């Protein structure tokens, strides 16, 4: 019989304390963690899932949260399906991950895929005796963010996922976490585990919930720690509801945090510690930057005593640590680690003085007559304009230079319900002026289009067609 080497999620969260105040809060209900001591969200069928490879596919985040707490150490493998998962890929995932049980809040929808055990999971805990003895170092399978086409599955364990998490008691006072992320993606899962193992509570977002409603709930629950992507934050900071919130800690991750969004977050939450972090599904949590500046000090590459090694090779950031994923799942999958155990993040770095700045994704480059441009560099300049909330820079096909730079810009309306045409034209001219003074000519957008909104991916990142 297999024996687990490290504490299970349930053991770790119980060790952090089961005080009555600790809970998971959804839009309409909340569950205290203590309820799980003598109850289950899986009816009395948890034992049927022992040693199985389980797909957790729920429409509701709370149901998924409870299933994950209950199944770590019990199941051999857990596959975490985000709410936007494309069912067309389900047969591939079921076969590749050798799924022999599905846990879901919509059993009728998932009964026709040839998996014998389809177990309903509730968003409520029913009182009963539960055997929580853990036998497995359960594999946690995550889909990489921004995936289009066949999903890439990444193998973690609770140990790799929690390597960056400090134990309970390291934070003063009750900690209430909130995140715009789905907890079934890496960024959200980090916050979920942080709340559980660090002794806090967690406010869960809902896919259909307006940002302002989520922020109002966060205020009502006294959220102290809140995280999201720069894109999440640019949208959230448009809402007056953000001003009612007074977190101790606000964090950006998952995309490049430019100076404008860092400054905006800090000025909205003057009391908060504002940080931006680098993490990815494959590379894990690498580091956090807390000096209020975009980029990170070059000294991070030579840090001793830290369990994360960074290096720059072929211009991209490479990470080696105990928090990286173990491998990709599936035959013929490429190798996740290089010969020395580093993960190539694909994020291009540019050194300016004593600091490294993220220039963009390798492969996301716009080529204007042979000159290469990272869209993110141009966006960061556009975003400096006080009337700009967010921007997207893309390649526009051109018969002369192959491509030219085009920009779409969402304006910050502030208190005014609409901006007059004159202000729009003036803003466009000012943006171009800023770009011309800060960027080489080929990087300056040839056209700027004002749009009402930009597409955002389910993982909370700006939608890039080529990413």
């Amino acid at each position: 019989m297999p024996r687990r080497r490290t504490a299970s999620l349930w053991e770790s969260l119980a060790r952090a304390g089961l005080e009555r105040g600790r809970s998971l809060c959804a839009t309409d209900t909340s569950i205290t963690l203590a309820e799980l001591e003598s109850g289950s969200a899986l009816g009395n069928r948890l034992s049927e899932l022992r040693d199985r490879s389980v797909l957790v596919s729920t429409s509701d985040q709370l149901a998924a949260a409870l299933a994950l707490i209950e199944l770590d150490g019990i199941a051999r493998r857990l596959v975490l399906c985000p709410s936007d998962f494309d069912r067309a890929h389900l047969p591939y995932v079921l076969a590749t991950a050798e799924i022999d049980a599905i846990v879901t809040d919509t059993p009728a929808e998932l009964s026709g895929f040839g998996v014998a055990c389809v177990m309903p999971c509730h968003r409520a805990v029913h009182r009963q005796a539960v055997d929580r003895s853990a036998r497995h170092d359960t594999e946690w399978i995550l889909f990489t963010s921004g995936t289009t086409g066949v999903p890439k599955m990444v193998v973690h364990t609770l140990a790799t996922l929690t390597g960056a998490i400090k134990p309970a008691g390291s934070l003063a006072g009750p900690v209430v976490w909130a995140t715009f992320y789905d907890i079934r993606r890496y960024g959200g899962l980090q916050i979920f585990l942080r709340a559980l193992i660090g002794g806090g509570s967690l406010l869960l977002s809902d896919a259909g919930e307006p940002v302002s409603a989520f922020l109002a709930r966060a205020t009502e629950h006294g959220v102290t720690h809140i995280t999201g992507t720069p894109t999440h934050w640019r949208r959230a900071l448009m809402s007056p509801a953000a001003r009612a919130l007074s977190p101790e800690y606000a964090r950006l991750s998952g995309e490049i945090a430019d100076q404008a969004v860092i400054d905006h977050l800090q000025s909205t939450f003057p009391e908060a510690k504002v940080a931006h972090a680098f993490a990815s599904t494959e590379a894990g949590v690498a580091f956090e930057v807390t000096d209020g500046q975009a980029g990170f000090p070059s000294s991070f590459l030579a840090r001793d005593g830290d369990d994360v090694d960074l290096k720059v090779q072929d211009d991209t950031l490479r990470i080696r640590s105990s928090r990286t994923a173990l491998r990709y799942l599936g035959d013929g999958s490429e190798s996740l680690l290089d010969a020395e155990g580093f993960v190539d993040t694909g994020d291009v770095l540019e050194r300016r003085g004593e600091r490294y700045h993220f220039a963009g994704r390798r492969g996301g480059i716009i080529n204007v007559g042979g000159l290469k441009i990272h869209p993110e560099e141009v966006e960061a300049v556009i975003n400096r304009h006080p009337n700009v909330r967010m921007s997207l820079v893309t390649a526009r096909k051109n018969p002369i230079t192959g491509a030219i730079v085009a920009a779409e810009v969402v304006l910050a309306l502030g208190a005014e319900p609409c901006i007059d045409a004159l202000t729009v034209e003036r803003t466009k001219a000012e943006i171009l002026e800023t770009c011309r003074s800060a960027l080489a000519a080929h990087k300056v957008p040839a056209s700027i289009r004002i749009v009402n909104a930009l597409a955002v991916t389910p993982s909370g990142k700006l939608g890039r067609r080529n990413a």
Partner: protein
Amino acid sequence: MAASIRTTIISQFEQVAAEQRHKLASLTDERPLMESGLDSLAFAIVVARLEDSLGIDPFSASEELQFPVTFGDFIHMYEKMYENATT
């Protein structure tokens, strides 16, 4: 309409030259495009803006494009395509 296409093109050349801080040569029909004062980036921007304002891009429309040599060729190419597109 032909006159207005010429006007549109000239004003785009002037505007882009000003934005890119290029000194524009006088735009006679005989002026070789290479000597108009615009570099390839500026030229690319002119073509993109003309596509926005006129709705046509003669450079991408035909695979057997005779690349215009003079400013006059350039205008003629746009006028011809504009006529074909609107009749």
